[in-house]
C-alpha cells in the first residue's frame, strides 16, 4: 500500500476540481462527492498506517529540476510520523465533511464550501507526506491559502474578511522566517531533503550557530502557523469562519502544520540546545498566556480558540523539552478532542443561534447527544484521568520535568489548572443552570452531525491508551523505532507528576463548579476585586491594540512617507516628461487650424530660421 500513498492527497484534490467544475449543478449533492473522496483518503491512510507497522519507511522520489549540479526532487515519504498524520488529517477531515452536510445546509455557496474543504485537505495531506523542505513549503503555503478561503467564507461579513486577511498576513510573517531558514539550510547542507539535512547535521557539517539560527528561523514559521505567541492573534479571529472549518483548522490541518514541521525536523532542533530552549519557552509561555485569556472570554468559539493556542503551546513545550513522542502524542489526542469540542460547539450554535455563552444555559436537557459529547471533550482537554488528554498531558509534563525545565514545568501545571477551569466554566455556562426563556425551540442536531461527534467522542476517550505508562507505550516505541535522533519512546518521570496533574485539573473543575455550576461562589467575586486584570485578560492583553499601535502605525507611517516620495518625486518626474510631450502636441495641433495664413507664417518663420542658420554657419551644419 505504501508505494501508492501519493494517491491519498489526490482524492481531496479530485473532489476540489470536480466540485469547482460541476458544483453549481450538483448543489447540495456536492457533499456526497466530498465525503466520498475523503472517505477514500481515510481508508487508504488507514491501510498505509497498518502497513507501516510491519514495513520500514517507504520513500519515493523523482528528479524535478536540475540546476547546475543540484537536483531538486519531488516525491513522498511514509515514515511513522507521516503515516500517523495522514490518518489524523484524513479522519478529522472526513468527519468534518460529513458534519458540514448538516451544518452548512441551506447555504448558497454550499458546493464552494466543499470545494474549499477539499483543497484544504489536499494541502495538508500533501504537506505531511513531503520528503523535503521545498515541497513542504509549497503545501505549507497551500494550507495558508485554504485557510484564507475558508476563514473568509462569509466574505460579506466585514469581520470575516478582516479575519481572513489577518490569518494570511500573520502566518505570512512566520513564513518569511521559514523561507529564510530553508534557504540557509540549503546553502549549508546543499539539499532540501530531510534525510540529507539530518545527515549533514549529524556529521557536523553545519556549524552550531548555523544550526541554532536555521532551527529558530524555521520555528518562526511554525510560530506563525501554529498560533504561538507573538503571532497568535490570527487564530482567535479565525473563528469568523464556519464552525466545521474551525474544527478542521484547529484540530488537524492548519495549526497542526506548525507542530508537524517542528516534529518532522526534530533532529535538527535536537542538535541545538538553544533552539530547543527557545521552543520550550515560547511554548510554555503561550500555553499559560492563552489559557489566562481563555478564562474570561464570552464567545464559545473564542474560548475554544484560546484553548487551542494554549494546547499548541503545550505541544511546543514538549518538543522543546526533547519530548518528541509527547508532542506528537498530544498532537494526536488534541486533534480528536478539539475537533469534538468544535463540532459540539457548532452543534450548540446550530441549536441556539448565538455564540455568546452568557446567553446560553440549561442546554443539557435539550441537547441529549451534544451535551455528553461536549462533556467528554471537556474532560479530555482538562486532563481528567482515563481520558486521552490526561495521558498526553502527563507525557508532556514528564518531558518538561525530565529535561530540567523546572520553571516551565510549573508554568505548564498552572496552565493545566487554567485549562480545566475555563473549559468547565464554558461547560457549566452552556449546559448547566436555568434554560433561558427565549430558547424554547432548541433541537438536537441531525444525525449526520452527531455521528461524527460520536466517533470523535469515542476517540477522545480511547486514543490515549495507545501510549500509557500503565499498559505500554506502543505509540512512543513505534514513533522512535530505529531512529535514535528522536529520543526515547518513553521518558520515566516521578509518579508525583501524574498526581499533581490530576490534582490541579480536578481543582480547576471544582472551582469552576463552585462558581458556575453550584454558584455558591459569586462569579463576580474575583472580577470585582481585580477589575484591572480582568480587563487586561478580556482584551487579550491588548496585544491587538499594541500591534495596531506599533506595527500597523509604523507601516502606515512608512507608507505615507513613500507615498509622499511617490507623489512629489516620481510622479513629478513622470508628469514633467508627459507634460512636455503633450504641450508640444498641443502647440502642433493649434497650428493646424486650417488657416492658410497660419501655415504661411509657419513656413516663413521656418525659412527665416534656415536663413539665420545659413548666415551663421555658412551653409553647413557641423
Amino acid at each position, binding site marked *: 500500500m505504501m508505494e501508492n500513498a501519493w494517491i491519498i492527497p489526490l482524492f481531496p484534490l479530485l473532489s476540489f476540481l470536480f466540485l469547482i467544475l460541476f458544483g453549481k449543478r450538483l448543489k447540495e449533492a456536492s457533499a456526497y462527492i466530498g465525503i466520498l473522496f475523503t472517505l477514500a483518503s481515510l481508508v487508504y491512510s488507514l491501510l498505509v498506517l497498518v502497513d507501516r507497522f510491519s514495513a520500514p519507511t517507504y520513500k519515493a522520489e523523482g528528479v524535478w529540476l536540475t540546476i547546475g549540479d543540484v537536483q531538486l526532487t519531488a516525491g513522498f515519504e511514509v515514515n511513522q510520523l507521516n503515516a500517523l498524520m495522514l490518518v489524523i488529517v484524513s479522519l478529522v477531515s472526513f468527519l468534518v465533511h460529513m458534519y458540514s452536510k448538516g451544518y452548512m445546509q441551506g447555504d448558497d455557496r454550499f458546493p464552494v464550501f466543499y470545494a474549499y474543504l477539499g483543497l484544504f485537505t489536499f494541502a495538508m495531506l500533501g504537506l505531511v507526506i513531503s520528503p523535503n523542505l521545498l515541497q513542504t513549503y509549497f503545501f505549507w503555503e497551500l494550507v495558508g491559502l485554504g485557510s484564507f478561503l475558508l476563514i473568509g467564507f462569509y466574505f460579506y461579513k466585514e469581520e470575516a474578511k478582516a479575519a481572513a486577511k489577518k490569518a494570511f498576513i500573520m502566518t505570512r510573517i512566520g513564513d518569511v522566517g521559514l523561507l529564510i531558514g530553508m534557504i540557509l539550510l540549503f546553502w549549508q547542507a546543499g539539499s532540501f531533503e530531510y534525510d540529507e539535512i539530518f545527515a549533514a547535521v549529524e556529521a557536523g557539517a553545519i556549524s552550531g550557530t548555523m544550526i541554532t539560527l536555521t532551527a529558530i528561523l524555521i520555528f518562526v514559521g511554525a510560530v506563525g502557523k501554529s498560533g504561538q505567541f507573538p503571532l497568535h492573534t490570527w487564530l482567535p479571529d479565525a473563528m469568523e469562519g464556519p464552525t466545521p472549518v474551525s474544527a478542521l483548522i484547529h484540530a488537524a490541518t492548519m495549526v497542526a502544520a506548525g507542530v508537524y514541521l517542528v516534529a518532522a525536523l526534530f533532529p535538527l532542533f535536537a542538535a541545538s540546545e538553544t533552539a530547543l530552549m527557545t521552543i520550550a519557552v515560547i511554548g510554555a509561555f503561550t500555553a499559560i498566556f492563552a489559557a489566562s485569556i481563555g478564562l474570561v472570554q464570552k464567545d464559545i468559539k473564542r474560548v475554544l480558540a484560546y484553548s487551542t493556542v494554549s494546547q499548541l503551546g503545550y505541544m511546543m513545550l514538549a518538543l522543546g523539552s526533547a519530548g518528541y513522542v509527547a508532542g506528537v502524542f498530544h498532537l494526536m489526542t488534541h486533534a480528536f478532542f478539539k475537533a469534538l469540542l468544535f463540532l459540539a460547539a457548532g452543534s450548540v450554535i446550530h441549536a441556539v443561534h448565538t455564540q455568546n455563552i452568557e446567553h446560553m444555559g440549561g442546554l443539557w436537557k435539550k441537547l441529549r447527544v451534544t451535551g455528553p459529547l461536549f462533556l467528554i471533550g471537556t474532560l479530555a482537554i482538562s486532563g481528567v484521568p482515563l481520558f486521552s488528554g490526561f495521558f498526553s498531558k502527563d507525557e508532556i509534563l514528564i518531558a518538561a520535568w525530565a529535561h530540567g525545565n523546572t520553571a516551565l514545568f510549573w508554568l505548564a501545571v498552572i496552565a493545566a489548572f487554567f485549562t480545566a477551569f475555563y473549559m468547565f466554566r464554558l461547560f457549566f455556562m452552556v449546559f448547566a443552570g436555568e434554560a433561558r426563556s427565549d430558547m424554547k425551540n432548541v433541537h438536537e442536531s441531525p444525525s449526520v452531525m452527531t455521528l461524527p461527534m460520536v466517533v470523535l467522542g469515542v476517540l477522545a476517550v480511547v486514543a490515549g491508551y495507545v501510549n500509557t505508562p500503565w499498559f505500554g507505550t506502543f505509540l512512543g516505541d513505534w514513533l522512535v523505532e530505529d531512529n535514535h535522533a528522536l529520543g526515547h519512546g518513553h521518558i520515566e518521570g516521578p509518579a508525583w507528576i501524574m498526581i499533581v496533574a490530576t490534582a490541579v485539573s480536578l481543582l480547576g473543575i471544582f472551582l469552576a463548579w463552585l462558581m458556575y455550576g453550584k454558584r455558591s461562589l459569586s462569579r463576580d467575586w474575583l472580577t470585582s476585586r481585580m477589575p484591572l486584570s480582568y480587563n487586561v485578560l478580556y482584551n487579550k492583553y491588548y496585544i491587538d491594540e499594541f500591534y495596531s499601535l506599533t506595527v500597523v502605525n509604523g507601516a502606515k507611517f512608512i507608507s505615507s512617507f513613500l507615498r509622499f516620495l511617490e507623489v512629489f518625486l516620481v510622479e513629478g518626474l513622470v508628469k514633467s516628461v508627459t507634460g512636455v510631450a503633450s504641450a508640444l502636441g498641443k502647440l502642433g495641433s493649434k497650428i*493646424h*487650424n*486650417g*488657416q*492658410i*495664413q497660419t*501655415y*504661411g*507664417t509657419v513656413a*516663413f518663420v521656418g525659412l527665416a530660421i534656415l536663413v539665420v542658420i545659413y548666415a551663421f554657419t555658412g551653409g553647413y551644419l557641423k
Partner: protein
Amino acid sequence: MSTVPVQAYLALALILFCIGLYGALTKRNTVIVLISIELMLNAVNINLVAFSKYGITPSITGQIFTLFVIAVAAAEVAVGIAILISLYRNKKSVNIDEMDAMKH
C-alpha cells in the same frame, strides 16, 4: 545719365516683398491677400530685371523670365478670383479666416 545703383533696385524689391508678405499673412480680406501676392511677385520681377542688367553676367534672360512671371501671375489671379467668387457664393463672405476647410 546718372545711373541708379543696383542696391536701390534690390532695396525696392525687398520693401515691396515685405509689404506683400505682410499683407498676405495678416489681411482678412481675401482680395487684399491676392493683391499682396501680386506685390510679392512683382518684387521678384524687379529683382530679375535688375540682375539682368547689373548682374555678373548680364543677359536678356531675366527680362524674358519676367514676362513669363507676369503671364503666370495673371493666370493665377484669374484662377484665384474665380475660386474666391465661388467661395463667396457659398459662404457669403470673403474673410480669409473663415476659410479653414484645409483643417478637415
